[in-house]
């Protein structure tokens, strides 16, 4: 009996244990299923988030690539286009420009959406830039993929891609930079145009500051376009093209006559200006010269790069803030006024006859008074109304005016007309009486001077050998319409542009 009891107890314990196991297994199984389903859902969500972001990443990158190029291109490639750093031979270099692009692109790139939604327990790591490379028609990017990760106890998900993402955007930003830099630097540059062309700088005039340099360029440094290459054998192509002229179009070096002369005669305010004197020389407007060169450069570039548009404008400044129209000004910054050379006062005397001019320091003067016609005085009878004579007073001054930097002749002339305008009343002697009281005509000894006819004359004459300063600011805008770049908050598009600003500093004077 005792054995049976023990057996019953053992079996009962065994049953309890078995039931406990069943219960434990059931509980664990249910819990594990919940945990597993949660993890599966999390992993699914992580992968979905990775791919959702991945779908938009190339287009976001594309947008940043092209809008960065556009923004920098319209800002001189990203350099300061002002006084500090215009395009010239040393600043900026192509490397600086591409570094600038990379730097700005990276800044723009890392403002990509970072928070990819209500992530909860997910961690998101943004894509990162591994490499940026340029070729003439593309910007090539290598990106390290973004990551969506999850790390729970004993369960980790890392949704990413082991490979790098290669993105190549078709934009000719680097090409524009290279062309822009080519205009200011030595070198050889490949082009797509298959024509052959030789371009020469013009030699200009022998009576000019630029002559020797331009002649040397003309003789020894032709620009050759052949075999899909263009050599730019001289530094600062633009500057030299403006100075010397190019391909049959004359530049500043063709200006040989710096002698200006203009003469005017007027009643009161007569002024002879340097501008008028320049116009009176044997060349036309200097700005026309420059504009002709610019047009020629534009045509040449348009021929070599037929799928790019070139807009070139030039503004010439001489630093004189008083330049009126802003288009063209003439420097008055002469080093010193030319000497007063009219030692014999010939110019003065030509206005002073019959007087004689006397030489003073840097001037000639004369003055005389004379009755130049008829009788200046005398008697006229009562009731006679006629001109008797003309009395002239003249002062002539010829001098160099420091303030205006030109010669001028100031002729002050006053004419007095001696008229016999004696009416009976004026005469007050229309009747004379003899001793017997009989009236008779009598002569009055009255001189009438009428000053109403005085004149004032002013002549000025400009004669000078001068030199000319110009600081042309040339702006070139290259435009590539092969792709259009969207404008933010608009459905409009812009082509890719690259603006260049070049500032010359020329001094033109007779050789």
């Amino acid at each position, binding site marked *: 009996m005792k054995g049976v009891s023990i057996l019953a107890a053992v079996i009962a314990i065994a049953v309890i244990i078995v039931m406990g196991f069943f219960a434990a297994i059931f509980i664990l*199984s249910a819990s594990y299923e919940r945990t597993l389903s949660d993890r599966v859902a999390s992993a699914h*969500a992580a992968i*979905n988030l990775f791919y959702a972001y991945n779908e938009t990443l190339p287009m976001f990158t594309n947008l940043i690539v092209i809008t960065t190029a556009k923004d920098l291109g319209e800002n001189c490639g990203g350099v300061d286009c002002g006084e500090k750093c215009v395009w010239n031979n040393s600043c900026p270099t192509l490397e600086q420009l591409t570094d600038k692009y990379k730097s700005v692109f990276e800044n723009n790139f890392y403002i990509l959406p970072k928070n990819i939604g209500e992530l909860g327990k997910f961690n998101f790591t943004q894509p990162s830039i591994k490499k940026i490379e340029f070729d003439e028609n593309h910007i090539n990017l290598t990106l390290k993929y973004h990551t969506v990760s999850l790390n729970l106890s004993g369960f980790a998900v890392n949704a990413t891609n082991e490979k790098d993402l290669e993105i190549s955007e078709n934009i000719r930003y680097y090409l524009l930079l290279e062309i822009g830099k080519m205009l200011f630097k030595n070198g050889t540059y490949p082009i797509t145009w298959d024509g052959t062309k030789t371009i020469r700088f013009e030699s200009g005039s022998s009576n000019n500051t630029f002559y020797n340099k331009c002649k040397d360029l003309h003789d020894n440094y032709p620009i050759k376009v052949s075999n899909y290459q263009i050599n730019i054998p001289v530094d600062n192509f633009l500057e030299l093209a403006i100075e010397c002229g190019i391909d049959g179009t004359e530049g500043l070096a063709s200006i040989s006559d710096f002698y200006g002369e203009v003469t005017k005669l007027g009643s009161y305010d007569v002024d002879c200006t340097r501008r008028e004197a320049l116009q009176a020389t044997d060349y036309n407007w200097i700005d026309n010269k420059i504009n002709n060169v610019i047009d020629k450069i534009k045509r040449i570039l348009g021929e070599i790069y037929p799928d790019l548009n070139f807009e070139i404008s030039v503004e010439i400044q001489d630093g004189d803030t008083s330049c009126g129209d802003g288009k063209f000004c003439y420097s008055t910054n002469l080093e010193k006024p030319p000497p007063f050379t009219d030692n014999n006062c010939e110019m003065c005397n030509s206005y002073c006859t019959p007087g004689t001019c006397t030489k003073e320091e840097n001037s000639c003067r004369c003055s005389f008074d004379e009755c130049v016609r008829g009788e200046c005085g005398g008697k006229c009878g009562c009731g006679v109304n006629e001109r008797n004579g003309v009395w002239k007073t003249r002062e002539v001054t010829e001098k160099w005016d420091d303030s205006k930097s030109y010669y001028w002749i100031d002729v002050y002339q006053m004419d007095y007309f001696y008229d016999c305008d004696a009416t009976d009343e004026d005469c007050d002697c229309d009747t004379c009486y003899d001793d017997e009281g009989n009236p008779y005509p009598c002569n009055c000894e009255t001189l009438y001077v009428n000053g109403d006819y005085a004149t004032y004359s002013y002549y000025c004459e400009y004669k000078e050998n001068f030199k000319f300063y110009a600081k042309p600011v040339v702006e070139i805008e290259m435009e590539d319409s092969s792709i259009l770049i969207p404008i933010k908050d608009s459905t409009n598009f812009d082509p890719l542009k690259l603006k260049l600003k070049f500032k010359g500093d020329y001094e033109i004077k007779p050789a």
Partner: protein
Amino acid sequence: MRGFILSFIALIFVMVTCTIFIVIFLILSYTPAKITKELVVNVVYEPMFAQNMLLSLLNMRNETSGITFADAVVYAAYQNTPTPEIFRNGKIYRFDLSHYAQKYVDFVCEYPGVKKKCWIFIYDATSRSIVTIAKNIDNPEKEFERSQKEGEAVSRASLPLGFDRWFVIYTRE
């Protein structure tokens, strides 16, 4: 002696039984849980529905231009319009997000035996403005607000389009 034998047999029985269940437990512990329909549909699939919708929608493509919905939605954010224009292969194409999204909603959210409430919109968190791209219910904003308050399961998916701007999909049974 007989009691001892019986006890010994019972002990052996218990040990064998325990061993069997321990083995079963261990096997269960290292075996994936059974993939039931409930697990797949209710626990995994439904919460992912909006995300799957988002992925599929982003991949929709205009066959003529080759522009995907994902491309267009990026431009939509940049141009600040649900009808962005995209330059591709020398032409400018206009892409109407609503046109494609609505077609997708009509196809995915309603079919015989199934009626899901779907709402696709762009949300600007700065201005707190919503631009509805597609929907299959009236007043979706109120409808989903009510669902959330009442604790109903809402499946959501969102894709950032920039600073504080999102492309969002809401669905629920």
